[in-house]
């Protein structure tokens, strides 16, 4: 503790490890919940909690240790088959895991630990043990129950709860020393548990001439007398697991004073024949005991497994740099190929063949680098399963979350920014999507509702779907609400899709009463804005009586943008493709002037303000005539629309996004830049900024039905 910095670093890495352990815990619990788990599963679950406890102990995180310890005790009971983990128990385990992750987070942020909730869960956990007869925490007493009973045998003069005794053989491997461990520390830790009798076996120590300084010659035999469980002893050796030969054996308990132990065990045995009438009591004690030794063994087995899939933690900045460099490489390669092509080289020349190879390699490198940033959506989905649990409990519905494709990889930033909208959608699905239990039963559906969360790659994009098996969108009601709120005209005739899309209008809420969960004024419009900000799209499909599916389509990475390349006043510019609704040409029939200087274009009965992009950007003055001009109809995240006049549409392509240094000057209407194949920089437009900046922006462009139809 003298140097706070290394400690802080270790502490930070402990919390990173906690994240992984919590993930493993969730995985294990899920496997247990759908019965796909095997014996190893509960071990994994147990170990996860145990390791968190161990680490937390090292950092003096009392609250975390306390909770983890009792949680672990219950899990241990499951592991040793004294407790059957039924559905309710697993639900409780999930809640405990959620609470544990809260505790970890609060501990990390030095926040206030939610004691009350923890205590409630602990009470339930303890009750679980109580219900199932043998409380694991009483194991210690039970184990030595024979002793209590042996009072009958006239041994009443012994101290009643005699401490347990263990023989520990500890033989360090050279690796133990190499990793900086110190047997003395371990022995001291053992001594803290109870009274120790330590024998050092020095028979392996060679003559000085043969002595290898790095070899490990010493072995220890410890006879420990302490009122502890074997697991506690094992945990002392946790850090040297696999680095030493270790056996821990309990010594039968009906032996007298610890000091005589080394001589006495055998002479004591003749008394054993008295015990047969006691066979029933030892039985439960015997059961946990054999279950204990496998634990270190399983651990030893798991360690090489996790070592096989080695993981490197890399600073995100370094990856950023690599991504940037590869972006440059791609641009450079495009420039090179452009200049080679224009130099009139034969397409079969060596240079051109080499270039082709170079292009393929560049593409591969780009894909691989993007993959470094990619992460499986699993962590996100696990967070969602918690949302489902909490939220189904709040509205008292029985809901199961089914996830699919949680190994699908998406850019890290996308995952981070997807959390909020997805949470909202999941809550919506549970609260509004699924009908109340009695309605489900009446409709002949199983009582348990299912919310399905899937992720998949489809043609260069990531598709994430949230679906429920609820009643589907009540289109009558949706239309009624929209009419009442003045969002649509009362006599508007809308298709089903149009009605579904009304949900995305700002200020829309289908729940007639506001519940705890949703209806906090954050509507689907916010979700859609968040998705669009990520360059994504969101669509709804709904079948009455069968359910609703929200489908999000996202780009694989934020470093690349699908853009429409246009020409404006001699400059090449890029518009994000997901905001372009349609393109049209101006003619006499659709151009109108509302007042001098402000034109509108009529698109299927709607008027949309018309701006000359070149003028808005200050590149040129207004033209005399806009007849036959090319117009892009765009909508920003908020649903505002505008028609932009451009000179020419050149291409649709993916462009690498380059940030603009805005320290001197922030250009209005410009979001970023990209580098074209000829090495020139093209600016990427920020349409919402343009719409807001545009001269005609005093005219509110009310969201209306037109944008919903497209």
């Amino acid at each position, binding site marked *: 503790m003298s140097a706070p910095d290394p400690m802080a670093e270790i502490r930070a890495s402990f919390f990173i490890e906690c994240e992984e352990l919590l993930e493993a815990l969730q995985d294990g619990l899920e496997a247990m919940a759908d019965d796909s788990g095997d014996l190893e599963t509960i071990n994994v679950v147990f170990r996860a909690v145990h390791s968190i406890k161990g680490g937390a102990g090292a950092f003096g995180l009392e609250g975390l240790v306390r909770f983890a310890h009792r949680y672990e005790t219950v899990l241990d009971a499951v592991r040793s088959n004294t407790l059957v983990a039924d559905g309710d128990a697993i639900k409780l385990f999930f809640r405990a895991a959620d609470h544990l992750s809260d505790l970890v987070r609060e501990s990390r942020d030095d926040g206030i630990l939610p004691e009350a909730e923890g205590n409630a869960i602990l009470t339930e956990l303890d009750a679980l043990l109580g219900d199932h007869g043998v409380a694991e925490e009483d194991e210690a007493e039970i184990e030595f129950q024979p002793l209590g009973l042996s009072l009958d045998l006239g041994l009443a003069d012994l101290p009643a709860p005699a401490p347990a005794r263990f023989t520990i053989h500890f033989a360090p491997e050279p690796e133990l020393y190499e990793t900086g461990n110190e047997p003395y520390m371990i022995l001291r830790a053992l001594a803290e548990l109870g009274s120790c009798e330590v024998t050092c076996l020095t028979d392996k120590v060679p003559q000085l001439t043969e002595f290898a300084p790095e070899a490990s010659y010493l072995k220890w035999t410890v006879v420990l007398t302490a009122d502890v469980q074997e697991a506690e002893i094992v945990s002392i050796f946790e850090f040297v697991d696999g680095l030493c030969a270790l056996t821990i054996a309990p010594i039968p308990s009906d032996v007298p004073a610890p000091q005589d132990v080394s001589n006495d065990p055998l002479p004591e045995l003749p008394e054993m024949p008295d015990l047969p009438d006691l066979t029933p009591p030892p039985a439960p004690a015997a059961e946990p005991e054999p279950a204990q030794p496998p634990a270190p063994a399983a651990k030893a087995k798991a360690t090489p497994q996790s070592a096989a899939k080695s993981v490197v933690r890399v600073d995100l900045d370094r990856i950023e740099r690599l991504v940037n460099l590869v972006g440059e490489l791609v641009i450079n390669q495009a420039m090179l190929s452009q200049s080679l092509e224009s130099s009139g080289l034969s397409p079969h020349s060596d240079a051109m063949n080499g270039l082709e190879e170079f292009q393929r390699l560049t593409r591969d490198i780009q894909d691989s680098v993007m993959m470094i940033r990619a992460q499986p959506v699993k962590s996100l989905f696990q967070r969602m399963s918690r949302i489902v649990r909490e939220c189904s409990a709040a509205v008292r519905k029985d809901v199961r979350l089914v996830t699919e494709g949680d190994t699908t990889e998406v850019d890290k930033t996308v995952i981070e920014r997807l959390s909020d909208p997805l949470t909202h959608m999941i809550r919506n699905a549970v609260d509004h999507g699924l009908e109340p239990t009695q309605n489900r039963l009446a409709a002949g559906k199983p009582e348990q509702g299912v919310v399905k969360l899937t992720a998949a790659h489809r043609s260069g994009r990531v598709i994430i779907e949230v679906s429920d098996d609820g009643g589907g969108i009540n289109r009558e009601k949706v239309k009624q609400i929209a009419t009442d709120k003045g969002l649509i005209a009362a006599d508007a005739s809308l298709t089903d899709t149009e009605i579904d899309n009304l949900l995305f209008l700002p200020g829309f809420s289908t729940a007639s009463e506001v519940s705890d969960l949703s209806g906090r004024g954050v509507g689907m419009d916010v979700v859609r804005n968040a998705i669009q900000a990520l360059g994504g799209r969101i669509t709804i499909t709904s079948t009455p009586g069968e359910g609703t599916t929200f489908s999000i389509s996202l780009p694989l990475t934020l470093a690349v943008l699908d853009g429409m390349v246009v020409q404006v006043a001699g400059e090449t510019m890029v518009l994000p493709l997901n905001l372009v609704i349609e393109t049209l040409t101006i003619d006499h029939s659709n151009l109108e002037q509302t007042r001098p200087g402000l034109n509108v274009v009529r698109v299927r009965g709607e008027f949309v303000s018309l701006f000359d992009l070149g003028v808005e950007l200050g590149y040129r003055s207004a033209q005399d005539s806009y007849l036959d001009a090319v117009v892009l109809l765009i909508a920003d995240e908020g649903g505002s629309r505008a028609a932009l006049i451009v000179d020419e549409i050149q291409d649709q392509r993916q462009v690498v996004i380059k940030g603009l*240094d805005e320290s*001197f*000057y922030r*250009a209005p209407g410009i979001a970023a830049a990209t580098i074209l194949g000829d090495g020139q920089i093209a*600016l990427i437009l920020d349409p919402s900024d343009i719409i807001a900046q545009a001269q005609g922006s005093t005219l509110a462009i009310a969201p209306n039905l037109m944008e919903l139809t497209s």
Partner: protein
Amino acid sequence: MTDPKSSAPVELLTFRLSDQEYSLDIMCVREIRGWTRTTPLPHAPSYMKGVINLRGTVLPVMDLAERLGLPPREHTDRNVIIVVKYEETMTGLLVDAVSDIIALTSADLQPPPDAASAGGPGVIKALTLLDERMIRVLELSEIVPTPQSDAA
């Protein structure tokens, strides 16, 4: 930058702007590039020429003459962009032509009389004489605005 009172050696990159000679501490110069077409930024101040592609980085370029308030003039092929780095910001400065690299000691630099600062206070850090020609030493921190200081 160097303390003018000491006699530490200073190397300056000298260049011309509208027949006047200016210079910059060579330590802040990253590279010198030939003139390439810039992509203009909308509604930018006139001295902001736009951005260019510097090996994959988007580099803002400003016309140093206009930035200092000198009259605008035609660009020729001899125009070059001096890429400078001030703190963490890279900027391109468009100048008429690069002349020379001169080595001086700080003792050769004189603080400018107040009235001599053409582009406002502090832009000219020092003056020096080279073959009877006056060379203005620019204070880069006054030219390259730090974040927020000059947001138009």
